[in-house]
């Protein structure tokens, strides 16, 4: 029988939530790596029992973990992330040059074709690759050495490479996003990169044609349409139908288009989900009502999904990597909050119920659909 495994990274450990295909009864295991920040956990699409986890701490730095049994047991793997060559500088918050310094791994993206190959997006922004199951990491330095690197500037959460999307139809094409440099694409497996930010508008950037500098919060893609991308920017929800070369705003009737998370329905490539947040200075839902918004038309027209979600006195945030979908029928949608709740919908967002209510602040949610 089919089932799902939800991988939850929190400020104080990782949790693995499992259920059968009905998705109404859940088992919770964890905390794994108790007391450490788990920015991200993600399983290999080739071998779902192979899961990678990013474990970090302000005291002890970065550790990478690997499981070969679906998250029951773990082994530390390589944690040496050395930038290649001269590190140079990026801009600091005040605009002065600041040296590149490794801080942590924000996002792990296992290969679509090989369980031992995995990408890691890190802070300060760079992309690393391992081809031996995480034991050794090599920087794909063409990204950091893109000519615009000295102009990149951190967002409030740090200068993090937080989004990595592999094109399932073209193994050489990868999309990444950095706060607050913007989105980039490689068409040669990571050797060279181009900024793909045309059409983005940011109030704090006076030049409407600025190549970099946009605070992209997250990007999502449906595997059947790898040229179509959906973006939750700092403000604005955007879409591109030409692999990021051009973007148009699709915020439409959203009550606020600030937010972090965005994802696409597993079976309907024009159905997308966002979790609107009031503003850049008030990181909680509008009016204290937690609402996921769904568009079935690829943007512009949005409907609030509220059944089962708190509609008053709710002041949590939904972070950029904290929303995911399963590929069962009906599509399951999941998101975690900074209040420690993980909500699940087994009917594509029509209704919601908490799987857990009292975890540490949720940093990331990934879902594995198990056969």
């Amino acid at each position: 029988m089919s089932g799902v495994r939800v991988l939850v990274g929190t400020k104080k450990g990782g949790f693995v939530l499992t259920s059968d295909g009905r998705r109404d009864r859940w088992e919770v295991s964890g905390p794994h790596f108790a007391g450490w920040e788990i920015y991200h956990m993600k399983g290999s699409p080739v071998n779902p029992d192979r899961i990678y986890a990013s474990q970090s701490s302000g005291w002890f730095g970065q550790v990478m973990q690997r499981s070969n049994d679906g998250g029951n047991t773990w082994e530390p793997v390589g944690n040496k992330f050395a930038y290649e060559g001269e590190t140079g500088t990026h801009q600091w918050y005040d605009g002065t040059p600041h040296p590149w310094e490794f801080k942590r791994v924000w996002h792990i993206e296992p290969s679509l074709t090989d369980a031992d190959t995995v990408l890691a997006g890190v802070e300060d922004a760079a992309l690393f690759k391992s081809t031996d199951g995480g034991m050794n990491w090599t920087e794909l330095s063409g990204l950091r050495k893109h000519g615009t690197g000295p102009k990149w500037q951190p967002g409030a959460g740090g200068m993090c490479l937080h989004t990595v999307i592999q094109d399932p139809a073209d193994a050489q094409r990868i999309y990444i996003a950095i706060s607050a440099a913007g989105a980039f694409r490689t068409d040669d497996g990571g050797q060279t990169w181009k900024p793909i930010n045309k059409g983005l508008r940011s109030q704090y950037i006076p030049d409407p044609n600025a190549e970099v500098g946009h605070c992209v919060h997250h990007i999502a893609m449906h595997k059947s349409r790898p040229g179509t991308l959906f973006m939750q920017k700092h403000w604005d929800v955007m879409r591109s139908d030409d692999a990021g070369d051009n973007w148009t705003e699709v915020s439409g009737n959203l009550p606020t288009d600030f937010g972090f998370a965005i994802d696409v329905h597993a079976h309907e490539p024009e159905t997308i989900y966002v979790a609107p947040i009031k503003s850049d200075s008030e990181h909680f839902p509008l009016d204290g009502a937690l609402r996921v918004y769904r568009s079935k038309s690829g943007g512009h027209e949005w409907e609030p999904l509220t059944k089962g979600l708190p509609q008053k006195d709710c002041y949590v945030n939904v972070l950029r990597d904290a929303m995911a979908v399963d590929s069962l029928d009906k599509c399951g949608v999941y998101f975690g909050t900074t209040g420690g709740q993980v909500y699940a919908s087994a009917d594509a967002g029509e209704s919601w119920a908490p799987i857990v209510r009292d975890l540490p602040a949720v940093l990331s949610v990934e879902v594995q659909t198990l056969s």
Partner: protein
Amino acid sequence: MSVIRIELPQHLRTLSGAEREITLEVQGVVSIKSALDALEARYPTLKGTVRDQGTLERRAFLRFFVCEEDWSHEPTEKPLPEAVAKGREPLLIVGAIAGG
């Protein structure tokens, strides 16, 4: 060769599977550096958690205490007191109090 004692903070014990206090053999002069070299050789998973793997600089929120003195800012190749080199006193690796 010297036999020294090192005390680890809880998170590093969990990560490495080591006991709170471990005993290590150190070749040559006993210093912070040679002690950490021996520690990382015995427990490779601790690489990068006490000091940077490239620069070998102490991680900012960790402290080294020896014979009730803070050695965090001493040169890492400076010989440690005889009491540590002879194993009578441990080298303490302590997580600094930070946050709220």
